[in-house]
């Protein structure tokens, strides 16, 4: 009896217009396989804004972020010692994303209030804060900046904002170019729906990036059977060396 009642209440609650607008999102691929010929990939994140009331006033904004698996990164700084350039200082960033990109339907500063950015850590410097600690007074700041600069140059962090295409304030899509130097793991996509600077709804999805086929085999073998892997690498080298000299001897004859 109580169960039926609870279910009825649940249905009622769901039917209530708790939120006037909701975001529904999908991914072009939930799995990306890294094969030997892998040279980057494009991920399309698309979706729609679901409404059960007429569209409210205010500017609609959609922001999509894509974040790669977290890694421990050591940032080292060179300085001159004894006339040569040597690594002298270092900072460890315990969890830095291997990839980070933001796409928005309009320039971030126009649709995203700084307070919300700080809370949700959307823009790159703020996203980095949650990994590198506050970038401010302390001396780790240049290291965190260097991390962002180097990764941006490599294309792993995309500072240049890509566009979220918003059609009739209802349908949206964002394209992300994943670099060829992708690492394995779960890539997290976050979708934020904003109306006049307030967060209305959010959604999250995951893309699994895995080595497949030969790549998977080689990698697993090197981690789980390192001795066998080493022996196989050697056998391959010895065979190649022998085969080459045997082959060229045949040719010369």
């Amino acid at each position: 009896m109580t169960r039926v009642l609870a279910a009825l209440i649940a249905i009622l609650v769901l039917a209530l217009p708790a939120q006037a607008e909701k975001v529904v999102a999908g991914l072009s691929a939930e799995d990306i396989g890294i094969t030997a010929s892998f040279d980057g990939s494009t991920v399309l994140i698309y979706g729609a804004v679901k409404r059960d009331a007429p569209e409210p006033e205010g500017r609609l904004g959609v922001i999509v972020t894509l974040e790669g698996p977290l890694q421990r990164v050591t940032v080292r700084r060179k300085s001159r010692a004894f006339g040569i350039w040597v690594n002298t200082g270092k900072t460890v960033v315990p969890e830095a994303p291997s990839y980070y990109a933001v796409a928005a339907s309009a320039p971030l500063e126009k649709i995203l209030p700084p307070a919300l950015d700080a809370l949700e850590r959307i823009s790159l410097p703020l996203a980095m804060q949650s990994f590198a600690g506050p970038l401010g007074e302390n001396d780790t700041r240049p290291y965190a900046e260097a991390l962002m600069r180097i990764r941006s140059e490599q294309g792993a962090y995309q500072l240049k904002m890509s566009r979220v295409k918003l059609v009739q304030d209802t349908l949206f899509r964002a394209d992300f170019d994943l670099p060829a130097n992708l690492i394995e793991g779960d890539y997290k996509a976050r979708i934020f729906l904003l109306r006049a600077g307030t967060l209305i709804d959010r959604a999250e999805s995951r893309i699994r990036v895995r080595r497949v086929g030969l790549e998977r085999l080689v990698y697993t073998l090197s981690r789980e059977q390192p001795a066998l892997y080493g022996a196989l690498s050697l056998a391959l080298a010895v065979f190649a060396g022998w085969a080459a000299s045997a082959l060229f001897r045949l040719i010369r004859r």
Partner: protein
Amino acid sequence: MLQEQSRSVAMQIYLPIAEISVNIFLLLGLGGLVGLLSGLFGVGGGFLITPLLFFIGIPPAVAVATGANQVVASSVTGVLAQFKRKAVDVPMGLVLQAGGLVGSGLGIMLFNYLTRLGQLDLAVQLAYVVFLGSIGLLMLQESVRALRRSHRTDLPRPKARNHGLIHKLPFKVKFRTSGLYISVIPPLLVGMAVGVLAAIMGVGGGFIMVPAMIYLLDMPTKVVIGTSLFQILIVSAFTTMLHAITNQSVDVMLALLLILGGVVGAQVGSQLGARLKAEQLRILLALLVLAVGVKLGLDLLLPPGELYSLSTGRTR
């Protein structure tokens, strides 16, 4: 469902251990170039391949370990040819080996320690600068002198220098192929030094082993190359195994492409080498060794474009 991307026009290959995507032809070309030089000069070519791999963005640990694996392939080719000519002093090779294995074990320990300190790149660069610089100069000086001598044949060839100290050491052994009766201590030490270098620099050490055998051990030139290759083969095989087990940094896909390019290049190189004079070859090799040394030395001395560098740990 797995989505496979194949925009195969660029012929990129994703290296499973290095975790980067590189052009196949670039790797085959690098292997071929180094193979050409090794065929031309009778060296393993490790001293070139490792810095070149750094340059195309392969992580240093992977470059060093995979370089060692590549040296195995090129030295197998070489040593087989030398065995046919009976130009391998096996007992001498074994003594050098014994030192080499100890050295390579020590080298791996040092390698891992330096990696933790963040000074691996510096150590590798310094080692290259010091060894390539001094050996390049020695070789250049020696081969210029030899070239002059070959023009004026009336002058007698200076006698090989005798190292008084070396002949006073205990544990003397007869090395028949080399025609030497010397203590085992100097070859043990030479082998050990080369083993340490092999592990840290990802090189076979031929460029240091060959002059050490000629100038320090007074071995006859005809057995030097074969014996050095024989020793390098075992030491770099051992180094490859240690790197595979302790760092898991041997990239077999990378090694395979370098080896494929390398074996072809080596054959072309040895054909080409047969047409050049030995003295000219040695001057060319000396200049090449010096050029690599100077380039790496300048990198240490000149202010770098980017002061910061990143290294990543395991993915969470």
